[in-house]
């Protein structure tokens, strides 16, 4: 028995010894297969860890941007480290005081990271390097601000538009003409969108949809933004108060609900369940299950990947009658300098280079536009996204909008999306008096939906506003002003 004990102790000691002397992998490790071109300068360079979120061809684009930087000088080597859930991992790394040199985050991470002191303010570095505010499209830079200071810089910007399937429009040209609609162009107002959608719908013998002209819940990523196309706002920029139950937002939710009412919520649920994943040939728009869809600047690259011969058009997403356009929701991926990173000076050099040269490589290969006011003239030549100029115009359009940052940003967005889901599933027929038919029933249903949407969004505003007030109050007490 004693021998067994000693054996176990010896085994444990052996494991500990191996673990102690086993060299840990480091950024500076030279891999002859991957780094042959940098053999001569490898040991002289400062090695930076750049955590970024991309996958698939977007990751390749990011790698190419890093390669271009590494080849263009001999002092720094940037290691692009593909990191899923990059915001959470960056946060944990910051807490553990072991952040990467450069972190690629989302715009909604800026406030919590800046407030928590996890990102360096960049204003001073920008001024020293001659990088000015007017270099950027104002909205994209606003996404990087907190308390009037810039804590990150935009990388891949997002704008969105209406994608329309030209094949469907052509096939139903006669019906569209009969309905007084032009089959050669997409809808320009929400009211027109409804009329186009109605004509483009195709149903099976049992009444279930085969093709939907438009489906407000597809892809379902921006359900919280419909209100903007009706002239609404989620936050009053002047006062910083939440305005979820802005009458325009209420109208937008009631408008989306009409689709569930008209075509049957259950049938639409089942219809959607047959769609494939976004990045697949079975994507609802790419496969031709929906004729029109709200999508982002990246989408043409996915269409090209899965159905290159598809004929489609892109246009600004229509606004309700009387609401000025064109407009688009703008968001952005951002790049920041984590506080306490090992090589801040070199990391800034890399960030600066991305803004001056690198993003042109990244955004071109990812099929996106640049977050700058004046992109270089060569940027558009041979750009893989044939619709890039429309997105660029949308990004610069004066009516385009961002969701102003608050301390409850993510939670607020989730709550508004939940309210949208609530409206979509709300059984309106149970709230109508019996015996109504035809237009009378339609009107009563619309009024009921408007009432319910106003109440639901009112609840969201109340609950989130009280939470925001409490958070702001505590922050103010701790010596920080509200953003």
């Amino acid at each position, binding site marked *: 028995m004693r021998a067994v004990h000693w054996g176990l102790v010896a085994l444990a000691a052996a494991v500990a010894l191996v673990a102690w002397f086993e060299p840990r992998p480091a950024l500076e490790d030279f891999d002859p297969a991957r780094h042959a071109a940098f053999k001569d300068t490898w040991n002289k360079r400062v090695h930076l860890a750049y955590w970024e979120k991309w996958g698939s061809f977007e990751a390749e684009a990011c790698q190419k941007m890093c390669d271009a930087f590494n080849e263009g000088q001999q002092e720094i080597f940037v290691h692009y480290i593909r990191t899923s859930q990059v915001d959470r991992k960056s946060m944990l790394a910051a807490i553990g005081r072991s952040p990467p040199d450069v972190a690629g985050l989302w715009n909604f991470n800026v406030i919590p990271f800046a407030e928590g002191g996890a990102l360096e303010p960049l204003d001073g570095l920008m001024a020293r390097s001659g990088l000015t505010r007017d270099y950027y499209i104002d909205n994209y830079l606003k996404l990087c601000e907190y308390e009037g200071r810039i804590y990150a810089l935009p990388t891949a910007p997002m704008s969105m538009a209406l994608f329309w399937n030209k094949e469907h429009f052509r096939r139903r040209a006669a019906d569209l003409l009969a309905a007084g609609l032009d089959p050669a162009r997409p809808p320009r107002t929400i009211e027109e969108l409804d009329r186009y959608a109605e004509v483009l719908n195709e149903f099976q013998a049992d009444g279930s949809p085969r093709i939907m002209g438009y489906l407000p819940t597809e892809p379902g990523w921006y359900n919280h933004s419909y209100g903007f196309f009706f002239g609404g706002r989620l936050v009053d920029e002047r006062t910083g108060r939440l305005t979820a139950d802005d009458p325009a937002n209420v109208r937008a939710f009631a408008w989306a609900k009409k689709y569930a009412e008209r075509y049957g919520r259950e049938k639409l649920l089942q219809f959607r369940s047959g769609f494939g994943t976004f990045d697949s040939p079975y994507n609802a728009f790419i496969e031709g299950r929906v004729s029109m869809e709200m999508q982002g600047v990246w989408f043409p690259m996915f269409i090209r990947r899965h159905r290159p011969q598809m004929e489609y058009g892109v246009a600004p997403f229509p606004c309700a009658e009387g609401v000025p356009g064109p407009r688009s929701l703008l968001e952005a991926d951002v790049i920041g300098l984590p506080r306490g990173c090992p090589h801040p000076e070199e990391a800034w050099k890399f960030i600066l280079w991305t803004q001056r040269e690198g993003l042109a490589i990244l955004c071109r290969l990812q099929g996106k536009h640049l977050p700058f006011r004046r992109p270089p003239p060569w940027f558009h030549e041979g750009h893989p996204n044939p619709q890039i100029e429309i997105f660029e115009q949308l990004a610069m359009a004066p009516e385009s909008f961002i969701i102003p940052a608050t301390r409850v940003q993510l939670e607020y967005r989730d709550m508004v999306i939940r309210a949208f*889901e609530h409206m979509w*599933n709300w059984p309106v027929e149970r709230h109508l008096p019996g015996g109504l038919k035809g237009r009378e029933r339609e009107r009563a249903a619309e009024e009921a939906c408007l009432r319910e949407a106003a109440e639901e969004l009112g609840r969201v505003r109340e*609950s989130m506003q009280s939470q925001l007030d*409490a958070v702001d109050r*505590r922050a103010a007490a701790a010596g920080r002003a509200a953003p």
Partner: protein
Amino acid sequence: MNAPWRAGLKGCAFILPWLIALCVFIGYPFLAGFFFSFCEYQPLKAPAWIGLENYGELAGDARFHRSLGVTLVYAAVAIPLGVVLAMTLAMFLNARVRGQPFYRVIFYIPHLVPTVVVAILWLWIFNPKYGLLNIVLAQLVRAVEWWTGLFFDLAAAREGPAFARGPAVLLALPAALGLLVLGPAGRRLWRGRAAGLRRFLAAAAVAGIVLAAAAAIDAGATWLAPDDVKRLREPSWLSDGNPMPSFVPLAPPMALWALIVMSTWGVGQMAVIYLAKLQDVPAELYEAADIDGAGWLQKTRRITLPMISPVILFNVVMAIIGTFQIFAEPYIMTQGGPEDKTRFVAMFIYDNAFQYQRAGYASAVAWVLFLLIVAMTLLAFRLSRRHVYYEGR
């Protein structure tokens, strides 16, 4: 150093790695979480003491109440269902049938499959269009419709109440006769005096149920509202947030039913524990009962259940703890939707701590959840005092 001391020291040395891990990975977070629950704590900032504010906010937070409601409703349905199913399964596995070890392995295997794999598998099973469940359900609905259609086609020409119509009785007769013909089973169930009368009454009851079901389904006077019947034809399992059945207050929404159905997938492990105890019940007790003329039902009620009652309590307590901590399945399958109808308390904690960076508030919720689990477990122990039989005492 004397021998007992040396033995004790050696014992301590052996449990030391486990003890250190317990203190570092469970003890410290447990106590730190308690402290943080009184703080405003964004992970990137130092925690700031705010007293009972987090608990005060909890009391008025509609989202927390909703997630607590979801968890309680799920527990109220899934725990009894799991316990009863596992026990039934164990009793079947305990029967002397050919290939018994094979069946035991088959029922235990699902427990070995990782949760994430199970969730993805069920995601496909619940797919409304291509899912296995809806394909089977569609066939069942067709069979029921055929049966009820036949019933009313036959009865259409006659007058009088449905129960009095000859063809209707004809359809119910096979069920009644079946029960009577199942003599051996019937004899095993009811023995002794008036056994024949009891068998006759049981057959009549079955016939009545068959008739009532047929009449109810086809006449539209269903126990489910007509809308619910429509929803059952091709349920959108994971995306339907409306209660089922819709007229029952606090009934679980369809999406929650889906998770409840899925929870039965793992009852094999519970069944194996029951089985171990079932095989431990002394055979002489059953022999004595046989001599006294007890039937299967009496033996189950008077011998089997009391003898395995400690294991039932154990399984109930484990189920309470497990159910209140459910996270991975809804996180993968529904992300809390539709409309937060499957947002369990554990998900609520995760969202607040990691998504919204409110670790202090999340800690307060975690402590409330902990106290709730303790309360439920104590309740289970208290209720069990009169019903659990320990042989050793």
